[in-house]
């Protein structure tokens, strides 16, 4: 098992916890029913309509869910927590607070820290800090190449034994096809997951936003949307040769969706995710050079946004990840060209994703699957589902509650979000990790 997980201490003296009167929604079991969950020793001991206050064990702590929706804690497969090396922007501690507030109970951080997580000590460092942080389960990917330089392979076999869940050069695509080929071959040796940032680097170099009319009008150098599908298609040829497990991060274009759809039909071991900005925003968000709308890959045109949203509904896109990228004010309050790319996302992942459900694009079960059981499955984690014996990572949400996103109230150390003030529906009421309450919304009993 992954040594990277937060300790699931089964305290002998810990009392059982009973969550009664909930609408349990669990995509893994295709369950959507009234009932309760009994937690004992950090794991789910019983679940279903038969679990009620009346038959609760005498010593159990009781939580009345008031008929609200109880879902598995979100599994966020792409975050940057900036520790070590960027603690002024985010730390594992502040990132975990933000995760708990956002209903994220498990997250995988990228290796683009300082130093880069490309050796055993780096993986062990994250594992140790994760153990100290009880609010969320924190895992990491190892770098795919040493120092993220795109040349020499890291010790994937050993890093995996120490808990790395996959390998990626984080914000960089592996440019050299021969290196990527060997990386996939080597990963296949141990059946490890490779995660690619899909962008042909030569085409993206110097670009600041999506290539097109808007870029032309405001005079910013563009990144053509085909830079994404070119890298994906190159990799798919190599995936076919190697038989390796390949995951495309933050898909943002219609062409990429098509390429991945075909690869899946062919039977290649390909999965992908996208992040909320790619189905909720388009390039017009940049408007008057708003650096909070500078992302990598860049926000695309409206037709690409629609294609990404449709691909989630259709299941071509497997997962929704926050792509949490904290940046301090100094990194964003600069001319657009110089601004860092990326936005925070842990606390907006759920409400922005729920827009797809509220608009009727897809069912609640199908939507939640993208942020719970499916990423857990790809990562090989036992959580992301509500079943007997599973870790009691759960989130209670008020599904329909309308509110405005208020970035000032966010727990994340950085505040770079384009969603401030956005009206959304769906609020996290309580978050539990291994049966422990790690977040409770103010005003709730």
């Amino acid at each position, binding site marked *: 098992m992954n040594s990277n997980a937060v300790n699931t201490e089964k305290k002998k003296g810990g009392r059982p916890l009973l969550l009664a009167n909930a609408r349990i929604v669990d995509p893994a079991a295709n369950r959507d029913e009234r009932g309760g969950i009994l937690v004992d020793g950090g794991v789910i001991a019983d679940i279903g309509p038969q679990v009620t206050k009346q038959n609760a064990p005498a010593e159990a702590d009781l939580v009345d869910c008031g008929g609200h929706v109880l879902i598995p804690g979100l599994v966020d497969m792409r975050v940057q927590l900036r520790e070590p090396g960027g603690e002024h922007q985010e730390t594992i501690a502040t990132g975990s607070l933000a995760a708990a507030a956002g209903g994220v109970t498990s997250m995988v951080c990228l290796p683009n820290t300082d130093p880069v997580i490309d050796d055993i000590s780096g993986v062990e460092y994250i594992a140790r800090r994760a153990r100290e942080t009880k609010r969320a389960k924190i895992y990491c990917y190892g770098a795919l190449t040493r120092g993220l330089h795109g040349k020499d*392979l890291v010790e994937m076999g*050993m890093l995996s034994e120490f808990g790395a869940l996959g390998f990626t050069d984080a914000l960089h695509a592996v440019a050299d096809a021969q290196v990527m080929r060997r990386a996939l071959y080597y990963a296949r040796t141990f059946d490890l997951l490779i995660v690619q940032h899909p962008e042909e680097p030569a085409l993206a170099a110097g670009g600041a936003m999506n290539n097109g009319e808007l870029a032309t009008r405001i005079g910013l150098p563009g990144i053509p949307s085909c830079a994404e599908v070119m890298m994906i298609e190159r990799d798919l040829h190599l995936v076919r040769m190697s038989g390796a497990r390949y995951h495309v991060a933050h898909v943002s274009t219609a062409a990429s969706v098509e390429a991945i759809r075909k690869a899946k039909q062919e039977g290649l071991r390909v999965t992908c995710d996208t992040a909320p900005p790619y189905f909720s925003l388009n390039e017009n968000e940049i408007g008057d050079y708003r650096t909070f709308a500078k992302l990598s890959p860049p926000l695309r045109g409206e037709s690409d946004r629609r294609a990404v949203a449709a691909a989630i509904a259709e299941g071509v896109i497997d997962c929704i990840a926050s792509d949490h990228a904290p940046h301090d004010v100094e990194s964003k309050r600069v001319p657009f060209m110089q601004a860092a790319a990326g936005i925070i996302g842990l606390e907006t992942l759920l409400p922005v994703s729920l827009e797809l459900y509220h608009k009727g694009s897809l069912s609640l079960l199908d939507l939640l699957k993208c942020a719970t059981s499916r990423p857990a499955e790809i990562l090989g984690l036992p959580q992301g589902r509500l079943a007997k014996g599973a870790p009691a990572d759960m989130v209670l949400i008020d599904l329909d509650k309308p509110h405005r996103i208020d970035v000032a109230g966010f727990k994340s150390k950085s505040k770079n979000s384009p969603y401030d003030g956005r009206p959304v529906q769906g609020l996290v009421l309580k978050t539990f990790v291994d049966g422990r309450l790690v977040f409770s919304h103010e005003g709730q009993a």
Partner: protein
Amino acid sequence: MSAEARTPNPFFPHRHLLGIEGLSAAEIERLLDLSNRYADMSKDDSTARALLRGRTVMNVFFENSTRTQTSFELAAKRLGADVTNMSVGTSSIKKGETLLDTAMTLNAMRPDVMVVRHSDSGAINLLSQKVDGAVINAGDGRHEHPTQALLDALTIRRRLGKLQGLLVAICGDILHSRVARSNIHLLTKMGARVRVIAPITLLPSNIDRMGVEVFTDMRKGLKDVDIVMMLRLQLERMQGAYVPSVREYFHFFGLDYEKLSVAKPNALIMHPGPMNRGVEIDSEVADDINRSVIREQVEMGVAVRMACLDALTRGIVGQNR
């Protein structure tokens, strides 16, 4: 410009020894039988000493190899031949001459046998088409190294009495290994079952089409094997391009007693040398006198090369035959 007249040679009906691939099981068997006789023969056996008297054996090594060159040199000398060594350091290739020009120049000195090593696969096949004498491939690129496979087979046969039905694992850098390819040809032809075990970066494409089973996990691939053949991993290949690091390679693919424990209890350990202790093989295992036959392999090398020189020169008409 023909060197000597040739007569049919029923013992070994090939002019050259370029690889194992073109040989029949019966021919391999005959070469091994003959090698076995040379292995038991005294170093100064007078009949053997007369066999190649007046013949010229030319060692032409475009790629340096002290051990193989010495082994061929001793083999030729024990058969009474005149031996010259031309190594790459002094080669005219360095002065811009093409391989074939060099071959024609050497051929003009009328060697009976040329023992050739070259870093390019197929270079020796090309050279063999242009010379009058016999050519023995002493290793070409990642293609073949037939005398190594023969000496490995002889070592196994002398220890276990047979090749047929044995389960042999070849482990390590299969991709760049001519030793692996020649051994796969020989062992499968002689009825042994062959497995290859390596990280996929070190496995050539479609290697299973050569009749071997492919494994990427030593603990699975070594299960119940009779023979473990380790291959050398070149230093430049273990720094990130094919393998991330020495310690990772040793952790997953280095032969130690723990991984060896799933093999047959008396499984033999082989290595074509030179060994990288602590990279592909643990020192303790390499030095295990009950199981490691690495020194015997070197010893058998001379006998096998005597047999090959003998076999190939039987087709040449001359007063000594």
